């Protein structure tokens, strides 16, 4: 939805370079799961800043509210109760778009300019170009985009690209009361994460680590996890996410090759006609038939 246009790294369904004259530093949002208290201030800030109100849903008997991402809820806290070494751990993960370095949604999108990736790493949907096919949902390894039932457009977290463009931190980071959501350059966020991970290790979480999965080219939303060896504990955060091989096959070389093949069939037919000539009824057969007719 944002309007920057000088610093676009990639643009959906576009085969020529996007406007990229302005270079900006890569940014990242760091979510320190170990410091999250599950207050949902980030969810409130998200709806406040973007000025979107989801319908009031129903309570499913768990803290997750709403229970899933929707076209109007771009971030949700997911609560997991896990037993570790005889102790209950309440793992609370703020779910939302990961802003992948290699975004599956953008790869899958057939509408030019409906999805862009800025030089700063933010992956943004431009809903005015969205045609509502849902291919982004098919392409996403984290199951994030949601198609609105009202207007059939795809929506997800923008990482507050509008705020970031004018030097502000995303609304969720601004609102977080415990500092569990940090925002800055990706470099700085990794340094900050390293300190937090050091702390956690000292406190006995020897598998603590950073979630920045290489399979999707790294992400611009990072997690500090106490159990980085088992990200699945955090409500099914994928251990090794990547764009599905089916999506790569579908959107990779197959299509240009098939397009060329179709062109070859068309041209092949034309040249066959030109070189072999039309397949007409022979004079011989015509005469035979005439003779048979007069008998």
């Amino acid at each position, binding site marked *: 939805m944002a309007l920057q246009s000088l610093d676009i790294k990639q643009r959906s*369904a*576009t*085969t020529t370079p996007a406007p990229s004259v302005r270079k900006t530093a890569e940014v990242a949002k760091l979510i320190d799961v170990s410091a999250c208290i599950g207050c949902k201030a980030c969810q409130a800030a998200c709806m406040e800043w973007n000025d979107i109100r989801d319908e009031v849903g129903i309570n499913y008997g768990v803290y997750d509210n709403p229970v899933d991402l929707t076209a109007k809820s771009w971030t949700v806290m997911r609560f997991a109760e896990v037993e570790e070494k005889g102790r209950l751990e309440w793992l609370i993960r703020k779910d939302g778009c990961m802003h992948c370095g290699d975004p599956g949604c953008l790869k*899958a999108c*057939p*509408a*030019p300019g409906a999805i862009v990736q800025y030089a700063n790493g933010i992956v943004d949907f431009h809903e005015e*170009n969205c*045609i*509502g*096919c*849902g*291919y982004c*949902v*098919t392409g996403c390894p984290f*199951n994030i985009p949601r*198609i609105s039932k009202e207007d*059939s457009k795809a929506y997800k977290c923008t990482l507050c690209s509008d705020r970031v463009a004018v030097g502000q931190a995303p609304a969720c980071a601004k609102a977080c009361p415990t500092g569990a959501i940090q925002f800055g350059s990706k470099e700085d966020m990794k340094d900050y994460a390293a300190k937090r991970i050091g702390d956690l290790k000292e406190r006995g979480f020897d598998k603590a680590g950073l979630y920045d999965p290489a399979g999707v080219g790294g992400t611009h939303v990072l997690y500090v996890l106490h159990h980085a060896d088992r990200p699945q504990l955090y409500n099914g955060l994928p251990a090794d996410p990547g764009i*599905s091989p*089916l*999506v790569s*096959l*579908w959107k990779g070389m*197959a*299509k*240009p090759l*098939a*397009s060329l*093949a*179709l062109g070859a*069939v*068309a041209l092949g*037919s034309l040249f*066959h*006609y030109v070189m*072999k*000539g*039309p*397949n*007409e*009824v*022979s004079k011989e*057969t*015509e005469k*035979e*038939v005439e003779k*048979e*007719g007069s008998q």
Partner: protein
Amino acid sequence: MIRDPKDLQRYTPQERANHWVVGISFILLALSGLAFFHPAFYPLTYLFGGGTWARILHPYIGVFMAFFFVLMFLRFRKLNAMTKTDKEWLSRIGEMVDGDDHNMPEQGKYNGGQKAMFWASVVCMVLLVVSGVLIWRAQFSPPLELVRFGAVVHAVAGAAMIALIMIHVYAAIWVKGTIRAMWYGTVTRAWAKQHHRAWYREMTGK
């Protein structure tokens, strides 16, 4: 309307209408489908009133075509049963394409190539309908991995179908005197004897 009483009736008006309903739907589907196939073809969406309209219309046209394709399948399936002669014809298709049909085996109403085309398009159509349902987001939401699989199958079967129909159309253009059979139903006796001798005998008793 038959002007020359000696002409042979190859298709009834119902068969022709059925064929063209399917043909027109196919053209609309190919144009809107190609638009989503590769960015190079995206401007084709303008023929349908833009990307969103193309996305909305494509599956409905698909359902429409599928219905009439089934009717056409029922009409022609028996005539397209493969025989030994057809297999021999297919094994010598190279000679045919080379423009020398002197030694080709005698053919009934359809030759081996036409029958192969018929069955290949049936297979493509089944794949397209099943995979199309899987990726029709506005109506269905199957598991994601199935949607991904559907997207690949739909793209492959769609491209194959377009290639098949290109060959189908070209064959009709190449073999002179053929297209009129689908326009107004008749062919000349000489055409029938030249290209489908067994059918010619059956129709004329000669």
